[in-house]
């Protein structure tokens, strides 16, 4: 599993509004890449183009290429639904399906994609995904209770389990810890470290320490002003970005001397 992502000349629009301009980037398999930058700079928007989720918003469109192991996910005849099966996503706010139990939540992706599972297969997959999300020990006795009964951090890990249960190649995380307390955040960060053995992980975060802790490479986005498009300023090794960045703009942001 795990794939390489090449982003070439990516422009993103909402209607006529150019939200992100000319992104070039190469994301290596089995690595953690962090997107940082001020709010509104387009980092989440770029993340959402990697599994064609931005199309969900009416009027959104892109130009350019996003290659996944050499195949353009915006190429002719590509079904966004298939792309999303390869590229899982975890959102800012934990969003377990309220009508489903913990187990049903984990299996939701597989079941909704028409795969028939025998009972033992389903049990195995549930355990594997929940172990993968470091949640198994906490919930193994209440798999049939509603997922919304868990704590915020547990819910977020349940969402990660749900995403990895469909066995994607890439895992996208959109500020997964922004609504969590420090202890739950730590649990998720540990989990991200484990996940990179198997998946290509891309994480958007507004927390620079978090980017420094979990990622191998970091991309810094910035915006010139309201109504201007967001741009990728610097994409580099995380250690370089946080110690000795190439661009002055990055250094200003990192050191808090912003604007």
């Amino acid at each position, binding site marked *: 599993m795990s794939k390489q992502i090449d982003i070439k*000349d990516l422009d993103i629009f909402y209607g*006529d*509004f150019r939200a992100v*301009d000319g992104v070039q980037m190469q994301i290596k398999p089995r690595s953690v890449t962090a997107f940082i930058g001020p709010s509104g700079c387009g980092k989440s928007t770029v993340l959402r183009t990697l599994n064609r989720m931005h199309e969900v918003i009416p009027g959104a469109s892109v130009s350019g290429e996003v290659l996944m192991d050499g195949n353009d996910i915006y*190429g002719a*005849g590509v*079904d966004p639904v298939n792309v999303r099966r390869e590229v899982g996503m975890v959102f800012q706010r934990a969003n377990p399906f309220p009508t489903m139990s913990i187990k049903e939540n984990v299996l939701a992706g597989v079941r909704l994609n028409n795969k028939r599972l025998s009972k033992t297969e389903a049990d195995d997959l549930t355990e594997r995904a929940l172990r993968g999300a470091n949640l198994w020990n906490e919930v193994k006795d209440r798999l049939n209770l509603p997922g919304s009964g868990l704590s915020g951090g547990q819910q977020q890990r349940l969402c990660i389990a749900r995403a990895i249960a469909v066995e994607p190649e890439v895992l996208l995380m959109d500020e997964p810890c922004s609504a969590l307390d420090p202890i739950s955040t730590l649990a998720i960060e540990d989990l991200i470290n484990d996940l990179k053995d198997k998946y290509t992980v891309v994480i958007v975060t507004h927390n620079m320490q978090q980017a420094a802790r979990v990622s191998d490479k970091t991309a810094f986005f910035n915006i010139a002003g309201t*109504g201007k*498009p967001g741009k990728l300023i610097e994409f580099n090794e995380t250690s370089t970005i946080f110690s000795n960045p190439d661009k002055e703009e990055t250094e200003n942001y990192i050191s808090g001397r912003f604007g």
Partner: protein
Amino acid sequence: MPISTQTTESGPTGPGSTPEPGQKPPQSPAAGQQKAVVRPGDRIFSAATLIAGILILVILAGVALFLLAQSKDTITAQISDPSQITGGKGFFSYVWPLVIGTLISAAIALIVATPFSLGIALFTTHMAPRKLAPVLGYVIDLLAAIPSVVYGLWGIALAGNLTGFYLWLSKWFGWIPIFAPAADGSVSQTGRTLLTASLVLSIMILPIITSLTREIFLQTPRLQEEAALALGATRWEMIRMAVLPFGKSGIVSATMLGLGRALGETMAVAMILSPGVLTASLVVSGNQTIASEIAQNFPEAAGLRLSELITVGLVLFVITLLVNMGARAIVARTSVKGS
């Protein structure tokens, strides 16, 4: 959206490495859609929902078209020989008193019901004891659901008791045309007058207006209420400062909905009113509304009479349409912008 034009310009002029032509954005959405693959499941499902939506357009067009089609006989009669139409003086002199009766009864119902509805809504949202308030709200909702035929039945039982009141009204307020007694000084013996019907109508629309206004009042931002109280306002001053201004457009639209109901309400009037010619006085028998005219005569009607009644129904449809659109315009104008 002055920003968007600025943006398309700033794209190429910016320090970016990509010399993008400015006209690219309009093209790209179309290109994106061309590439997208539509799954059969999605196509079937979206088509089904689309058809359902279009069906609603068809039904509404059908209402107008079929009523018009069935009005054909009336229209030809009106053109060739107006004396054939009930009353012998053509369609318009037949329908005119009905329209007036409908408007009068709806107006009375609204005038009586609105202040009471506001009072009840305020009482249940801001004045009633905390534990009682939700129960009262629930009871109001239930009353709004009671079928009009039951209100009609109740109105018949009640009508006889009102004759004394009407006699008193005509004695002291007879100088006002709407309370004038008949030539011999009497009022309706059965009490089944347009005023009774209108009062029952007002009681009928009372829960409807109340339950809508109540919901609006409940939505008043708590912060605004607390801000008013924190300034030292009494409860009534708080209501005037925060609750009523916030609910203004909601109150108007609730009232208009009540008016629509009162205009189109058939049964309460059809059961209570013993109809007659249009008279100014509301305490003697006489007057008729459109809906009641249809209900009382439809079962026995055939031929031209049937067509007449359907045409009258078309008139009612148009009146309620106009009222609804007027209401919408008022609501659009009075609604609070932003928050």
